[in-house]
């Protein structure tokens, strides 16, 4: 992160060129040696035609003026000295964390509809789009007793291999239900290869307050298309009752029940 947005400065700590502040990558510095012009037969020498031998020509010191010759032994400290008076770019990561750019491509997340159903329908278009073959999806068949996402199909197995992922975001563009998005979380390191394959339970967005944990039936009378268009804004009392009957210990029940009574659910058609 240290170099972000500061491309003009040379990267610190490279080691080479301490005695040659002007990098060969910057021909605009005006240090084109006279000898080089002779070889070009009137042409402006380019990087490609410039003879490399001049960099190491010890005789070139003879041509320098008296003042330059005087400072020559410490000329290499010019960058060091000037940097001393500039703002510090070192970040104290991981002790101080800086927010990333808002659209930073970080770890993925599988989102939920406001009533807690998963948005992922297991269509595998993300896996199809992935240029690194980092995504593995197996779809499942929703049943009346186990409805995980609106409609017929849900993502039963969802894995992203972060050793392969190149964070290009093509999967996000491919997702037809906006189920897959990227967070700004970039702290993706692990001690084993297995740990770097994130499963659905890790990738799935947490149940927020007011959501009802899946599986549960869809909002009555609404189709998967209505969910997609945002007609559902929270769980309904019928959904809460369904979960209460089957999973009375579900942790999401209390906040979902409160949200349902407030009537944030979709309009039952």
């Amino acid at each position, binding site marked *: 992160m240290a170099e972000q947005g500061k491309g003009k400065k040379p990267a610190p700590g490279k080691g080479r060129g301490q005695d040659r502040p002007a990098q060969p990558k910057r021909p605009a510095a005006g240090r084109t040696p006279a000898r080089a012009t002779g070889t070009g037969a009137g042409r402006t020498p380019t990087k490609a035609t410039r003879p490399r031998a001049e960099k190491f020509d010890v005789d070139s010191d003879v041509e320098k003026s008296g003042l330059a010759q005087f400072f020559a032994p410490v000329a290499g400290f010019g960058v060091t000295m000037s940097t001393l008076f500039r703002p510090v770019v070192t970040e104290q990561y991981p002790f101080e964390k800086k927010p990333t750019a808002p659209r930073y491509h970080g770890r993925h997340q599988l989102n939920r509809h406001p009533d807690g159903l998963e948005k992922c329908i*297991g*269509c595998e278009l993300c896996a*199809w789009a992935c240029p690194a073959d980092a995504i593995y999806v197996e779809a499942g*068949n929703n049943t*009346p007793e186990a409805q995980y996402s609106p409609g*017929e199909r849900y993502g039963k197995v969802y894995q992203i291999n972060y050793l392969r992922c190149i964070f290009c975001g093509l999967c996000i563009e491919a997702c037809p239900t906006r189920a897959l998005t990227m967070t700004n979380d970039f702290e993706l390191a692990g001690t084993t290869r297995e740990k770097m394959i994130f499963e659905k339970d890790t990738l799935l967005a947490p149940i927020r307050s007011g959501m009802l944990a899946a599986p549960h*039936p869809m909002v009555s009378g609404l189709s*998967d298309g209505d969910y997609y268009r945002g007609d559902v804004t929270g769980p309904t009392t019928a959904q809460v009752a369904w979960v209460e009957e089957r999973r009375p210990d579900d942790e999401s029940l209390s906040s979902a029940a409160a949200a349902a009574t407030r009537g944030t659910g979709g309009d039952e058609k």
Partner: protein
Amino acid sequence: MTATTNESSSAVAPVEEITLTIDGLDVSVPKGTLVIRAAETIGIQIPRFCDHPLLKPAGACRQCLVDIATPDREGNLRAMPKPQASCTIEATPGMVVNTQHTSPVAEKAQRGQIEFLLVNHPLDCPVCDKGGECPLQNQAMSNGSATSRFVDIKRTFPKPIKISTQILLDRDRCILCQRCTRFSAEIAGDPFIDLQGRGGGAPGGHGHGLPAQQIGRFDEAILEYTPSGEQSPGESERTGDVVGPYGQAGVLSSVAGSIGGALEDTSGRPFASYFSGNTVQICPVGALTSAAYRFRSRPFDLVSTPSIAEHDACGSAIRVDHRRGVVLRRLAGDDPAVNEEWITDKDRFAFAWQTSPDVLTAPLVRDEETGELVPTSWSEAIALAAEGLRKALDGAGAAALPGGRLTLEDAYAWSKFTRLTLGTNDVDFRARVHSAEEADFLASRVAGGGMDVIFGDLERAPRVLLVGLEPEEEAGTIFLRLRKGMLAGRVRVTTIAPLASRGSTKLRADVVRTAPGDEPAVLDALSGSTGTPGDLTDLKAALAEPGTVVLAGERLAGVPGALSALDRLLTATGARFAWVPRRAGDRGAVEVGLLPGLLPGGRPTAQAQARVDVAGVWGVGELPTAPGRDLTGILDATTSGEIDALVVGGIDLADLPSPADAEVALAAAGFVVQLEVRRSAVTQHADVVLPIASSTHKSGTFLNWEGRPRPFGQVFTTSALTDSRVLGMLADALGIDLGTRTLEEIHRELAEFDGWEGPRTGAPSVPAAPAPALEAGQARLATWRLMLDSGRGQDGEPHLAGTAYRPVALLSPATATALGIAEGGQVRVSGPEGDIVLPVLPTPMGDDVVWLPQHSPGSSVYRTLGVTAGAAVRLAAVDAEVAR
């Protein structure tokens, strides 16, 4: 073993060629070719949905519109006023066709048509099983518009509908191309689904009081329509294993009115079809999908391997699609010479057995202390097996029972192993009803016979006589070919059977109603050796015509004298003949000599020259000369101690004529080596169990009933070993080099067995057994296996099992009445070992005959009754209350 196609039978009269112009290119095609297909020959692709080369033209989808001009009588080119459907118009001389590539009118027509088709097509490609391999998706991209002008609400239906436990229908996606209904009517002949409410209104009968045009089974509840319009059609039944877009449960489909018990499947729904899976494959959208493959994967996940179906002797070409080491589906391959593009549902859906939990992964041996089977290394297992076999060979000897599911190469290894390592002719592949008469018949008529009758002949033969064969149940591809020939008006089918089965009815076959056991008499009557009764004279004359084909099933082996009589008939009429076994490996096993009296290439063991021939190829001094025993003989000898050790291959004891005797023999055997893919009833008697690769884990060749080699490749990379490799290792441990390490080695040796010129085994001449004396309340048992039954090959596939026929007992109405069985009542069929109780379906058939499914749920005839076909069994009515 050589694939020698009979040229005379496949020759087709030359057809007149005509020349037309398509997109400025001249093309010559045979007369009668459709324009769409003429365009294909020069690489011009016209978009289409309803068109299918194996179905009759329909012109239903209107997607293939092109501009056509034809010369009039004066030769002036006259353009047709409107674009024409190129899938229904035959090419004519001088016709000028302009497709979407050269005609703006055709291009606009096609673009407009696809826009119409997409008006009501849901945008649910991401959840649709067809997504990624969908002709509608592809052609909307290639020939459609990028945007839609349609802004209204799409027409929707409740979905999905479960037509059977396997087939799901989504009417929203349907574009009414009628490929499925045409397949059902033209190819399979099942009233599976049809187009309803043609030209009708909206869903729910809101337009013109008629139900909307849709595919279905005339289920009033689904159509929300009653003919009288008065009483409510009632609610559709719902199913708990699928949901629709609203989260509502899926709809179960029924059919209008009562259909009677026989047509129900085991899930209690109306029987669909044995070929219903083909409609899923040819559906150009995702309207028909299968429950087994529902949401399992995407086309880009799948790795496809062409293969050959292992379930029957037809050798149908299939495509095996797998993802990460798991087979997810099988599709029909395209082999015009064999199965065209159709396969049975068994070939398509029954593959879960290869990954069932009882698949053996490591060799098992008996623990010395506990006597339990424990996994061990290959080297130890082979050493123990060799030690046990050596001990047996020093004693009374060993025999081999390889089973009928082997590839040609594996069967050859078994044959060589038995002769060289076990030093015996005691080997028999027939894990079913069999007889010495059958062995002689196979040796004289089938072994080394090459390809005489082929699938193509079944479409062209003027008369096909079926004996002891129900093609729809036992060889589905034969059924489809016969039906195709019959519908084309070329083939007439006659079957010698106890009753007109549904398959025979669909073949419009003449049934020579014959009680089980009476086949020899009928065959003799036809060959004229005992005088021909009047009603058979026509058939007798027909059989003498050139091109007549006789197909005999393996079940004839259970009727003493039947194959002898058949041999006499074939000699008398000169009719062409093919033997149709049920299992994929049977024909190959006959060719490589897995019979006590046969050596490879149809060489009789009894012929000294044949033995010298084979010994020469195998590089040994001499072969065992003593005549071998067949399966029953081997099992009896094992029980009595004349055989010490058995080497058993893929055998299901329930298939054997007497499973109980087999159990006794296996228990009595001193040493049993089993080579199997899965644990079976034999495993508990085995001392050493050697795991064998299933057909996805090996490559090899099946020889189908024609004698056509059907090679297939390996689907998975694996360390699993084939029978030939394992037998080779076992022989090595016994100090004999079997030379069966690679398929190349085996093929090189097999090639040397071609063309036996010496004397063959003589035709059998066994007298027919007298009909059993029937007491009052007794009947003769007719039985055969249904395509979908309790066979182990269909394990682990509940969706498929639900589409099988519900097991029923068939009785004549008179017998049912005499027994006092009312409609819907049950009958108790009793044999020496036990009883089978099944619902009765009165059927036109002989009064002294009862038919039972041989190995279906609740009706395992051999094991439960202890008798085989033709035996006398006792019938009794079951009080409905007691039965429940």
